[in-house]
């Protein structure tokens, strides 16, 4: 059993080997996201020289074609990947903490299945309204997560982690069946549905980013605001309550933040698996503590999705792989390597 959350702002203990590992982790995540940002803006079907990128930032002379490629196509797409990766990782940290389950991720609370059903309805049943896809996916994600929370809530007892997980499993099963039914009924539209359900940033622009941004900002701010009480919750419900934490309210706020973050990510990126589940564990293995898991996971999730999207659109260019395929292929083996190195698999 694992209980996890962010850290205490300015809290003690950055000395010693744990502190060194934390500093290394923060630096690595920052390097990963910075290098990924530059690489994603420079590389693609058309390469943009690094000097042109610098000139663009400095306001110098750059060809119009390169300017358009960077500002209209790559930059919004890259920012979408950063925000979605950050959202999914932070949602994973929050949900693993709220449910006290190391296997928790946005899929567990129905967000993924809710977004999936709504997207499948739009893509398979109402293809003429494809422009509504992000909004529909977000609404579906929120509706199903709210349903999971309401079902798992009991008067006086609140929403217990176990009930939350069981309700999530049941809702996932039902919504998964609905998706299967729709795919069977509209078999000719399977490719579009499949591409969306494995996640992609193909064609994502400033409008997608602006759709995702308010919910992402709200979710991240809430996540950081509940970081301290969530850490106290690691000591158990009774201990946390006796230490001044409103357990039920903290859990509800964290759940709502995770739903906002995962729902907004799914609305733009589709169903990108792996990030929410594994990034918090990767970060924990890297840092050796839970203190900075929330902020470092935010950076690491962004970096992972950024590099995955770069690989997805360059390896078989001009064709694209779904980004979810890349996150699984890169992150899975690396995660197993880390688990082995840390002794968990020996």
């Amino acid at each position, binding site marked *: 059993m694992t209980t996890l959350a962010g850290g205490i702002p*300015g809290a*003690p203990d950055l000395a010693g080997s744990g502190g060194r590992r934390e500093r290394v982790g923060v630096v690595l995540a920052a390097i990963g996201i910075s290098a990924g940002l530059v690489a994603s803006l420079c590389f693609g079907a058309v390469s943009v020289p690094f000097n042109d990128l610098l000139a663009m930032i400095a306001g110098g002379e750059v060809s119009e074609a390169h300017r358009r490629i960077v500002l209209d196509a790559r930059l919004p797409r890259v920012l979408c990947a950063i925000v979605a990766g950050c959202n999914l990782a932070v949602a994973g940290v929050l949900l693993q903490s709220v449910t006290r389950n190391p296997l928790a991720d946005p899929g567990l609370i129905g967000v993924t299945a809710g977004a999936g059903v709504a997207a499948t309805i739009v893509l398979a049943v109402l293809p003429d309204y494809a422009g509504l896809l992000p909004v529909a996916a977000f609404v579906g994600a929120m509706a199903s997560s709210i349903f999971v929370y309401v079902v798992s809530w009991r008067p006086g007892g609140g929403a217990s982690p176990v009930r939350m997980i069981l309700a999530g499993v049941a809702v996932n099963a039902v919504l998964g069946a609905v998706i299967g039914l729709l795919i069977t009924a509209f078999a000719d539209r399977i490719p579009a549905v499949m591409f969306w359900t494995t996640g992609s940033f193909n064609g994502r622009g400033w409008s997608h980013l602006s759709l995702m941004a308010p919910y992402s900002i709200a979710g991240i701010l809430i996540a950081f605001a509940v970081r301290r009480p969530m850490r106290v919750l*690691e000591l158990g419900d*009774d*201990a946390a309550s006796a*230490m001044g934490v409103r357990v039920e309210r903290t859990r509800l706020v964290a759940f709502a933040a995770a739903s906002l973050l995962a729902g907004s990510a799914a609305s733009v990126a589709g169903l990108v698996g792996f990030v929410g589940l594994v990034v918090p564990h990767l970060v924990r293995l890297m840092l050796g503590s839970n203190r900075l898991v929330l902020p470092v996971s935010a950076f690491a999730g962004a970096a992972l999705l950024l590099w995955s999207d770069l690989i997805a659109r360059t390896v078989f260019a001009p064709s694209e792989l779904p980004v979810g395929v890349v996150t699984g292929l890169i992150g899975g083996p690396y995660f197993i390597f880390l688990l082995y190195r840390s002794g968990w698999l020996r």
Partner: protein
Amino acid sequence: MNLRIDDGEMVGVVGPNGSGKSTLVRTIAGLLRSSAGDVRIDGAGVSDLSHRERAAKLGFIAQSAVVPELMTVDEHIGLGRHARRRWLARWTADDREAVERAMRVCEVSHLRGRKLDELSGGERQRVRLATLLVQDPPMLVLDEPLTGLDIEHQLSILELLRSLNKDEGRTVLCVLHDLNLALRFLDRVVVIKEGLIAADGAPADVLCPRIFSSVFGVDGRVGCEFGGEPVVMCQLRASTLNANSESTENPRVQVRILRSAPRQGTLSGP
């Protein structure tokens, strides 16, 4: 049930399994709502206090406290400041000083930087007490704080609680199973049976043959057979012993654990 605990008392709650000891202390700590009646601290109802106000008046250690993964001793103790810090407040010199002092008092300074899951049960309990001190409530409520500890750690935890009671004036309310320790360390013992107070008073007065028989179902008394110190002596009732011996028709199995002899030489291949 009507129970009044005054400032500076060191009170123990004892009773057989399932008698309601944990329910009582969890209700006093505000973690359970009583179906009738109320719990008051300094005249204010526990359920009327905000979580932070309650935490400032009363600290609690649960019977089965969670051992958080990857958390260091200093982090754990620092969390005790939660109720004392404003929302999003920075970690101040006062917070740091409170942690340092609690670590000194509870003698856990040498564990700084160690992970909770690497510590022994006794060390963890000291860390939890240090966390309570950082929270700084005048009343400490502990639900079976000695469970799973060896006798040395049991004694050291009770010595620490006694010093917090006598030296710092904190009120202590704890659930105990060991009546000898209750007799030795507590000012007052509340005996619970089936959710009601069966006896309440000084340990040597309360632990009388009638209470041993009616509450614990054993024959017992307090004697002075251990260097003049009062000790609890008890045994199963004669009727129970007889019933047990009569019903034992199967042959008794005796298990002996013998230290194996050291091996002479080693096996070797061809």
